[in-house]
Structures are given as C-alpha cells and as structure tokens.
C-alpha cells in the first residue's frame, strides 16, 4: 500500500476507535519477519509491546522489514514502511515523519511514554542513515 492510499484511508477513519480498527486492518499487509530475524539485534523495546526492524540498503535506497507482537504496532509499521521504503538518505532526512503522523491524527502514538516504540523505530532509521554515511 502506498503513502497516498494510507493517507486517504486514515482520513476516512473516524475517532480513535476507527483509527485503531484501520491499523489492525493494515497489519494484515505486513509480511512476517522470518523467525531468525526476531533477535535482540533487531528488537525495539517498548514497555508494552515489542517490535523488530531490519534495515538494509540496495543501490543507496533503504530496505525496511518489520514485525511486532501487536497488531496496532504492525499497522504503524506498515505506515512507516510506506513512508520510507526505497528512499535515499537525502529523502529520508528531508521527510518529517513525526509531523506526518501528527497530520494523520496519530499523535498519541508519539508519546515519550514507552508504550509502543514508534519514536524508537523512527530513531533507528535515522541512526541507520548516519551509519550509512560513514
């Protein structure tokens, strides 16, 4: 699913409950990570749920794959992947992901409370750009 499609769907989802339902639906689009990738190196710890993220580069374009125990977090991962997949370092740096999530009405998932780790996932993607530059 592409970014524009996700934006259209989220705009049509009413209230928190509607957005939660949509995230659960979107979660179905996320192919599971192979068990071997569900390791500590790829683990992103939220206090309330765990996610895993793998980052690779193909011809200077980012390749993301992710998984979570939680379907809502999986839905959020679908969003993040739609936003970042195949982008170059410059494109990633130019994109304000938090502002985008806020515009989609998902501010509550960006809290510093360590519930779901969305901030940590975005942070890990930025870290990867830094490492790729060296």
């Amino acid at each position, binding site marked *: 699913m592409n970014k524009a499609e996700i934006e259209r769907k989220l705009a049509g989802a009413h209230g928190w409950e509607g957005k*939660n339902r949509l995230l*659960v639906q979107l979660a179905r689009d996320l192919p599971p990570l192979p068990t071997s990738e569900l390791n500590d190196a790829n683990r992103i710890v*939220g206090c309330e749920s765990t996610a895993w993220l793998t980052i690779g580069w193909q011809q200077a374009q980012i390749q993301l794959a992710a998984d979570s125990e*939680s379907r809502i*977090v999986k839905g959020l991962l679908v969003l993040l992947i739609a936003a970042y997949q195949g982008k170059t370092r410059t494109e990633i740096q130019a994109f304000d992901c938090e502002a985008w999530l806020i515009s989609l009405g998902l501010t509550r998932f960006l809290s510093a409370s360590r519930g779901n780790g969305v901030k940590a996932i975005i942070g890990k993607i930025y870290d990867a750009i830094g490492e790729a530059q060296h």
Partner: protein
Amino acid sequence: MFDAYALRAQFPLLARTPALIYLDNAATTQKPLQVLDAERHFYETANANVHRGSHRLAVAATDAFENARSSVAHFLNARSSNEIVFTRGATEAINLVAHSWGAANLQAGDEILLSTLEHHANIVPWQMLATRCGAIIKPIQLLRDGSLDLEHFHSLLSNKTKLVGLTHISNAIGSELPIAELINSAHHYGAKVLVDGAQAVAHKIIDVQALNADFYVFSSHKAYGPTGIGALWARSEILSSMPPWQGGGEMIERVSFSQTSYAEAPARFEAGTPAIAQTIGFAAALDWLQAQDRVAIAQHEHLLRLQLELGLSQIEGIRLIGNALQKGPVVSMAFTHAHPYDVAQFLDAREIAVRVGNHCAQPLLASLGLSGTLRASFAAYNTHNDIDTLLAALSETLELLA
C-alpha cells in the same frame, strides 16, 4: 451505606472527566481535593524551610512537617514518629535500607530471600547490595495460583538468611501474602523482614506492631497522596543502629573538616531540604483515608474484583492471571488471540485506562511464561458501572481482534 459516587465527587480530576474509567490505580491513584488544598494551604500560609529557622514561619513549617510524621506513624500504628523516615517513595526507602542496614549487616555468603512476586524495586537494590558484599539472592517460588509456595519458603530459611523481602500485595497479579506468618517464620532464624506495602496501604489497615515487621515501606501516591514522597518505617532499635546513607544538611549533629557526627534517626536519614509540601499532602491523604469507612472501602473493592473476575470467566479468550485465595484489588489477564497492548488501545479509545506490560515484575512474568498482561486495578472511587463498561468493552474488542 458506602457510596462510591459520592467519594468520586471529592476527586477534581474525576469530577472534570465524568466519562473516564480509571482502572490504573496500582500505578497511581487520583487525589482528593483535601490533598490538593493541603499543599496549596501550606504554600499560602506556612512556607519556609524546616528544622533550621526560629522565625515564626519556619516554626509553623516545621510543626506542619513533623505533624505529618506523626500522621504517618499513627496510620501505621508505629510506636513512635521517630520510626518514620521520609523518602521519595517505596523505591528510595528500599534503597535506603539496602545501602545502610544492608551494607552494615550483610557479608559474603549471607542470603537474601525475595518472593518471585516482587516489583523490580524490591529486587534490584538487593542485587546491587549482593554484588557489593557477596551476599546471595534466593527467589521464593510461587504456587500455580500465584500465591507464595510456603513449603519452598520454609526450605530456604536457614541461619544464613539475613533478610527476607516480601511484597504485601503483588502489583502485577494481586496476590496478598500472609505477612505476619512469614515474618514469624523468618524471625525464628534471626532474619529481618522488609515488607513492600506500596500496593497495600490504600486498601488495608496496616498495623506494623501486629505484623511484627522490621521494615515497612510505601509510597504516598498510591494511597491518594502526592508523588515524590513516601515513607520507611523501621523498628526503632534497628533504625537507631543504622549508619547514614546520604550526607548533607539536616542529617548532622556537628560538622568540622576533621570530624562529623550524625543526628539521631530519623533526621540522620533525611539529608537536605525535604519535599515539605508533598509531605504535608501525604499526611492529608492518610488523614483523609482514615476518615473514610475503611472496612466498607475494602469490601467495596473486593466486590469490584469479584464482579470483574466473574465477568471475565464468561468471555471467551480471556485467562485470569493470579487466582490466589487472598488478593488485593488487582486483576491481571492474558488473551488467547489478542496482544494486551492492542486491547488496551481499544479500551483507551473508550476512555478506559488500564495498564499493560510486565508491570516492573519481569521475573514474575517470566515464571508465568508470559511477556505481559493487561491489568485493571481499583480504588475506592471505582463503581460497579465501571466494571460493567470494562467487561462490555473487552468483549467487543476481543471479537474485533479475533
């Protein structure tokens, strides 16, 4: 007749958000107006630093602060207010005991017994002590229902046991331990017992003399008071023998560059300017609680728990975690097909506040083979309608996530 709605009206946050169903009381309770007023009143009428001024405001502040100590002593039925040390909360109180009493009394090979139910706050300070002094930590196992395995406890006790750390009520699954009985057994071996009362004080009448404990710790904010303040109660003969742990003003008798002598307990353990207004709010909360019909509150909270547990047993896909016979007002659950975080998100969308995760009790969750649970925990202002609403929301959410 106990009226939870009338009680709820005394809590400004709850009065402001009538739709809110707040079931995260084991994390922190809401605060009654009386507590908010007490802090404000202090700042408006008696604000000064304590214990060091002779002007009238300083005297008023010191009197209010020391009266708060008496309120805490009275609340716990301590023999004297000198047995009460103010701390930032239960966590700091346990760290104080581990640093001061622990370092002075434990050596390599000594054993510390901790129940598997313990919150990280009653594990990590002991691990830090054990690393420093070479003591050994032994976990006390649980039975399948989440109660303490008494046989295992007795088998671990020996003359090497120096300290037993026990939660009064488990924050994660609600099990209530038979504290008095356990203390009695530990004392036969000369061991001291520290009770983490963080989850008990809001719900049970605490009598430290009847329990015959050595240390009892709790936080104000889980018992209707402000955050950032709590208390350590320690038997006076133990407290007076303990060395200081933090140095500074207030805790000294006399200071020179060649030698410093320390104040008597409890001042010896209260270096620096204390959280004065919070302490006064803390006492106001305990006074407020003691003015309520506490037996009726306990009965009400018990019925809320039974109502929820019965309701859960009728919803497909939910497993109650923790079936101990004696429980505090805490209900933990796991789901067959849904992740607790997802369930909590749908509940939150309906203004139902619950907690999910490992509840700062990872060894306990590991022993149960779980990575997390969803926990509903009650206070006096929760109503039977809250439980009905939660049950309906759980039922619909699980259908949606099936």
